[in-house]
């Protein structure tokens, strides 16, 4: 269309000289869009009644046209309402077009094709480039947070950390519950290496009927990401630059030196059991004499950190093809010292076409580097560190403060700043992903497409732990170690598809058939050694750990789909995919069918009189999805070659131990999902509402189950495991989203809200001898979560408490048996935690535990508000979750009254003593039952967060009225500004990146505060 107009312009300009009429004048002006982004390039300006007279706006939206003094100019642009202006002898006419909401029916990318949004029959959500601009995310996945119903996003607090995305609840017991990401045809498990500035659109296929075309990969839903392509027209340049400052949003408060000494001395001088002959009494107490040092280690380890991001792109195109080249740089220091993330992306897309042929490629090259301390974790190590140790000390060997060993030898935590400064892991990856495709239209409507999608990454990770001299008190850091891990990952995925599009009368159909081959391969090599300094290149001895190998996974699939619509009113989609996976032994082949239907009620004749309703569509769908084994899973018997026995004189002591057992009859997990949805458009599509109800049943869920010990598989440190198809689970729920938008006036705005409720119930689990045996998850030696039938996945399970045991309870909290008082808690003392004897058997034990609550959020909601006024734009994103509890292990650790490390300020003069009985904190030196996992450790995780605010202003109209600059926007924003929650930890929205289940536990060893990020930046288009 644009090209036609350009031709027209050339043609017109030829006419100008001959056809000039006396009353014609030259009119100049700018055509702007209402969003404050400035001039609209390529808008057409025509003179009413003169078909040949007209022009298109240039890159800045400027135009010059000749028109009769009393004529009328017509401004039009795709997606905007056509505007007419009388010339009235004006030489300058500036106009602002308003969006035509009715015509905004976008084309939505679906698996192996695309579809008009109006024709969709599945539950699909989309995010466009503009929304990505508003929220400075390190990981593209974060952009979905709070914006789409049914999509739950949990951020990682560490720079470069993965983002966890769950679509319609947790669909799986183990391992990955994230969706499949398809980036320009490449299958990915995470989005760390994608530059957000290169993303054109994200489509989330939420229900099975939409996702089933991805078969065995699609059990957790699919997110299709398309990168930006060049558009027809002149070469366009864009530059974005942004700098930011981050600070830890929340920290724990621990005691200062004075309070700590008082606490520690009380601890050392209190026997375990009153009156007991306890050897721990014979300790030397701290004396507050010559130290005026009081270090707050949180403040030292968590610090403000910088962040920056730059992006430059050039793009353009014409009828023979288009191109886009972009270079991006991202750098985020961590709020934890010695941590950070840096990434460079180079993205090149080209698409060429001639006649019936198309050829093109997409390529993303990246290099990223992640630095993290290798130290033994955060809370117990950092916050528990004795406050009387200085951070720096001129008199020591390395200039850092080192712990002074008390005479009783009680403090053995080293200087965390020293350890984090010197001991770190640096991981680097260098890689590429993209595709090369060719397409031919054999006859009109029949297209064959072949696409080779690839992904390759070279990984290198170095663990460097030099010897740290910290005196005699800390011996663990005196042993140096060094390790290197090299890997080479290559993947290719060949898609061959045939599509036939045809319209016969009112019947429109698209038929797709295809086959795909996928090969994933990882070549790895690692070597590590204990007792060697990182500077030494050669090592020897028996402390070397070495390994190499190749992990491979292959899939082959055949797919087919029919999309049919009658008169645009009755819509139907059906698909079947057949998958073969190399991971299974006996059950390699699976079939994944789906169908869905839609009815556009609003297009029916009887609806035509109801003008308020602009769109009304009912959708129903059903489909089956699969979950393949994970890349590293092995179903054969695996042997560990590190068993030894000291046969004297024997030269070969190597022994083999079977560590997991073969699972030949394993089959893949299937998810059957039913979806009913309704799309409503009101007030001329200004108000749109979508509601979906779904039932998602996961069957034959795969879990690596710990064997019974009597089976004898495993090693001393770890009971053997085996993969099993272990149970089934239902997630059902309701998704609602609504949007009101109005950019027709000078003040334009939109409000978008979404709300999702998911009910999770485990149906069957781990049946042994006809009986369901609970699957449990422990933190340390405490069992905290379980999976059992009829309850939610990984719910918390533990004791119920009732404050602390009082002096009076010692004679009343129990039963009298044969005239003798028997307490419920046999060994409890006043000031211990009081547990409830729920089953009333006269003794508090494991049988008194109960379900304490959900760990998976039940409700997820988000709200975005956008507004524009002249050159200003404003955006705010609120997001929250509720209906879940969090086990704050960090705070629990800091409040334990039996530890000699530094403790939370909550304990200062506030632990139980006979004189201070009205407190929630147990007596110091409490032991035994006191720290059973109970409701004391759980906090309500419900929160509402102002995730992001951004205010921008386009200076273009102010400063660069003319010239080649089409947009000059400056903006400032804050991420994670505020969180409203009763939760007392770093962040209730926790996800332990290293854990398997990970839900709802803030692990003291790994938690890092969420950074609050202040950003400011510019966007320049020319």
């Amino acid at each position, binding site marked *: 269309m644009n090209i036609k107009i350009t031709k027209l312009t050339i043609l017109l300009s030829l006419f100008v000289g001959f056809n000039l009429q006396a009353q014609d004048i030259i009119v100049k002006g700018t055509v702007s869009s209402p969003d404050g982004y400035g001039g609209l390039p390529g808008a057409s300006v025509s003179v009413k009644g003169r078909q040949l007279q007209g022009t298109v706006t240039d890159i800045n939206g400027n135009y010059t046209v000749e028109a009769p003094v009393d004529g009328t100019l017509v401004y039009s642009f795709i997606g905007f309402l056509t505007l007419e202006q009388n010339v009235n002898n004006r030489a300058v006419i500036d106009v602002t077009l308003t969006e035509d909401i009715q015509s905004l029916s976008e084309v939505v990318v679906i698996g192996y094709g695309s579809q008009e949004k109006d024709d969709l029959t599945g539950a699909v959500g989309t995010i466009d480039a503009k929304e990505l601009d508003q929220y400075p995310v390190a990981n593209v996945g974060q952009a979905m947070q709070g914006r789409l119903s049914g999509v739950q996003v949990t951020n990682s607090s560490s720079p470069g950390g993965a983002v966890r995305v769950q679509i319609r609840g947790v669909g799986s017991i183990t391992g990955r519950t994230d969706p499949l990401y398809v980036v320009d045809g490449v299958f990915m498990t995470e989005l760390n290496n994608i530059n957000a500035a290169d993303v054109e659109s994200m489509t989330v296929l939420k229900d099975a009927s939409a996702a089933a075309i991805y078969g065995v990969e699609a059990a957790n839903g699919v997110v299709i990401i398309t990168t930006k392509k060049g558009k027809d027209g002149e070469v366009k340049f864009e530059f974005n630059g942004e700098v930011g400052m981050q600070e830890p949003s929340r920290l724990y408060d621990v005691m200062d030196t004075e309070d700590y000494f008082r606490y520690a001395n009380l601890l050392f001088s209190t026997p375990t059991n009153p009156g007991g002959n306890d050897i721990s009494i014979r300790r030397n107490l701290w004396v507050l004499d010559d130290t005026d040092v009081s270090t707050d280690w949180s403040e030292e380890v968590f610090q403000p950190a910088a962040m920056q991001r730059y992006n430059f792109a050039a793009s353009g195109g014409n009828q023979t093809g288009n191109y886009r080249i972009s270079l991006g740089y991202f750098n985020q220091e961590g709020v934890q010292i010695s941590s950070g993330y840096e990434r460079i992306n180079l993205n090149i897309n080209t698409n060429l076409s001639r006649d019936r042929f198309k050829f093109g490629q997409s390529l993303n090259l990246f290099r990223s580097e992640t630095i993290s301390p290798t130290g033994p974790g955060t809370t117990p190590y950092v916050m528990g560190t004795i406050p009387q140790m200085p951070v720096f000390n001129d008199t020591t060997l390395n200039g850092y403060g080192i712990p002074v060993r008390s005479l009783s030898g009680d403090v053995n935590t080293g200087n965390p700043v020293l350890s984090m400064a010197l001991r770190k892991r640096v991981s680097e990856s260098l890689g590429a992903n993209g595709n090369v495709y060719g397409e031919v239209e054999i006859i009109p409507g029949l297209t064959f497409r072949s696409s080779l999608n690839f992904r390759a990454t070279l990984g290198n990770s170095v663990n460097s732990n030099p010897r740290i001299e910290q005196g005699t008190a800390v011996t663990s850091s005196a042993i140096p170690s060094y390790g290197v891990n090299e890997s080479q990952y290559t993947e290719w995925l060949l898609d061959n*598809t045939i599509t036939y599009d045809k319209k016969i009368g009112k019947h429109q159909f698209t038929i797709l058939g295809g086959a795909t081959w996928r090969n994933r391969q990882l070549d790895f090599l690692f070597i590590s050694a204990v007792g060697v300094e990182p500077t030494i290149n050669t090592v020897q001895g028996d402390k070397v750990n070495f390994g190499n190998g190749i992990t491979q996974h292959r899939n082959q699939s055949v797919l087919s789909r029919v999309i049919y619509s009658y008169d645009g009113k009755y819509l139907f989609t059906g698909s079947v995919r057949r998958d073969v996976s190399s991971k299974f032994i006996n059950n390699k082949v699976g079939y994944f069918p789906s169908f869905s239907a839609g009815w556009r009620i609003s297009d029916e004749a009887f609806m035509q009189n109801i003008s308020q309703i602009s769109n009304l569509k009912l959708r129903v769908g059903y489909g089956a999805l699969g979950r393949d084994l994970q890349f590293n899973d092995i179903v054969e018997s695996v042997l560990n070659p590190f068993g030894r026995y000291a046969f004297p004189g024997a030269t070969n002591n190597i022994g083999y131990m079977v560590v997991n057992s073969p699972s030949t009859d394993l089959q893949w997990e299937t998810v059957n999902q039913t979806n009913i949805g309704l799309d409503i458009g009101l007030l001329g599509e200004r108000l749109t509402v979508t509601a979906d109800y779904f039932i998602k049943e996961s069957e034959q869920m795969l879990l690596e189950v710990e064997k019974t*010990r009597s089976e004898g598989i495993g*090693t001393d440190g770890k009971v053997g495991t085996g993969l099993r198809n272990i149970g089934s689970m239902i997630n059902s729920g309701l998704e609602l989203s609504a949007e009101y938008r109005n950019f027709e006036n000078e003040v334009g705005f939109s409000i978008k809200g979404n709300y999702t409720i998911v009910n999770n119930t485990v149906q069957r689990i781990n049946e042994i001898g006809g009986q369901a045996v609970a699957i449990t998850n422990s933190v340390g030696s405490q069992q905290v979560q379980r999976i059992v039938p009829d309850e939610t996945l990984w719910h918390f399970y533990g004791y119920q408490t009732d404050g602390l045991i009082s002096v009076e309870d010692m004679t009343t909290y129990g039963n009298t048996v044969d005239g003798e008082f028997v307490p419920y808690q046999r060994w409890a003392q006043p000031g211990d935690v009081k547990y409830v004897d729920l089953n009333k058997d006269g003794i508090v034990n494991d049988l008194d535990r109960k379900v304490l609550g959900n760990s998976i959020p039940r409700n997820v909601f988000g709200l975005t508000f956008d507004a524009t006024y002249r050159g200003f734009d404003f955006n705010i994103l609120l997001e929250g979750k509720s209906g879940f509890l969090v086990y704050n292990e960090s705070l629990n650790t800091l409040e334990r009254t039996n530890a000699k490390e530094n403790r939370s300020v909550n304990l200062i003069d506030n632990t139980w003593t006979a004189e201070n009985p009205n407190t929630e904190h147990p007596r110091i030196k409490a032991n035994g039952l006191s720290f059973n996992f109970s409701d004391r450790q759980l906090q309500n995780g419900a929160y509402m967060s102002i995730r992001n605010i951004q205010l921008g202003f386009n200076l273009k109209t102010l400063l660069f009225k003319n010239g080649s600059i089409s947009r000059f926007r400056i903006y400032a924003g804050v991420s994670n500004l505020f969180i409203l929650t009763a939760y007392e930890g770093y962040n209730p929205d926790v996800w332990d990146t290293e854990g398997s289940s990970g839900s709802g536990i803030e692990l003291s060893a790994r938690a890092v505060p969420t950074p609050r990020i202040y950003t400011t930046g510019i966007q320049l288009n020319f």
Partner: protein
Amino acid sequence: MNKYILKLLSFCLVFCLLGACKDFTEVRVEDQLVLSNFNSTDDQVMGTLTTAYSSLGDYELYSVHYYIQKEFLTDHVKTFEVTDGFQNHANFQFTSTNEFFEGMWWSAYRGIFRSNSVISAEPEVNKNPELLARARDEALFLRAMYYFHLITLWREVPIRTPENIGDFAVANKSREEVHAFIESDLQMVIENDLLPISYSGAENQEIGRATIGATKALFGKVLLYQNKFDEAAAMLKQVIDLGFYTLVNNPEYIWHIENQNNAIGNENIFEIQYDVNVGGDNAFFSDGIVQNEGHMRFRYVDPSAFYNLIPTDEIIALYAEEPGDRRRTAFIRLPTEKIVWGGDSIENDVSGLAIRKGLSEGPPTAGTLLGNNENHPVLRLADVYLMYAEAITRGGGDINQAIFYVNEVRRRAFGAEYANVDITTIMNNPSNKEELFELIKKERAKEMAFESQRFNDLRRWGDLEEAMPDRFIPGREFYPIPQSEIDKSGGILVQDPNY
């Protein structure tokens, strides 16, 4: 034109469907060691046999826990350990969630699984059929050894065989069935007669493996534990009649590192082999544990060390009953005989009283925490002599034979300078079997002190309550089955009714 299109279309279709071929999705495992990676089945079988041995030496069995837990429950050992867990345990307040019970159960069944793997290995193209046949007999011996340990720790245990190797949970079997299973394994080894009396000369590398003597000695013990006195006597006599074993001349060499693998005299019949240099850093807390931690930790008299155990007044008094018993000084060190250990002086030395049997004097081997190289003898000739004497005394044999072998043990204990070493000199009526049995009990307590025999002996003699009147709780002769196993089994595994 249509023809052209059809051709192209069919070409495309064929191309699409090519992928249906199976070969593409056949992938070999190359990132982990799996059975299909082995070039030689023999190597894999011999390597598995190695780990079948190593479970015996685990942290949970003889390196620390089995050894300590067993001593804990007797009248001859006490502990300074004050934590609730230890005091409860010493007072027979067992809980099914105790991690040590779980650990012992776990180690024994690992040994059984590995023995089963060797027993059921298919000798396909093996290059060395004799080696594999012997390996199978060693595995049978080991399996019997593990089941014997299990049945002395728990009242009833599941029997894991190659047939039920893949079953998630298996029901417990009665003591009779478990004993019968052990007997049939040992009987098979004896019938096959492939195990040598000892490994020496060219077979030097094989030292430490099961022998025919060990098989028969274990068999004798298993029979005696079932009160099958005549069968036990016959079997134990076969060990003595091998003529290979002799008592070392001085009790100082009992369990001494210098008599490791019978360097001084052939008293030891089966030893757990330890060598800290074999496992390197992988040795700690893994199946590669090849260091003996119990011997050092057990006796190191530091109240802050874990699980330290010290002799009670009862056992010291027992040695004092007869003057000149050299085993007192060989097995126990009194406070006056203070231990200086390495460079780290023991400032918190509370009593100085320590068990000395098996203690290597000096610091732990460099680079290890508390471990050392000492082998742990599980079966030795003095044990066989005393068991034989007991079997005759309680069964139908010739009492003079019993007296003869008890005297053999006593002569070594007292040395030549004491004249009254003959047990008949302290007997009122040398033909009284009951009196002789009582004396054998005492002799066994003194000779086998701190060798994790005492609790089993008291139990089979029915003397637990008498020995520990303040502590023992009737019905608690055995540990509760680990709760995690009961929980996982879905009701198939049943807890001891006493818990």
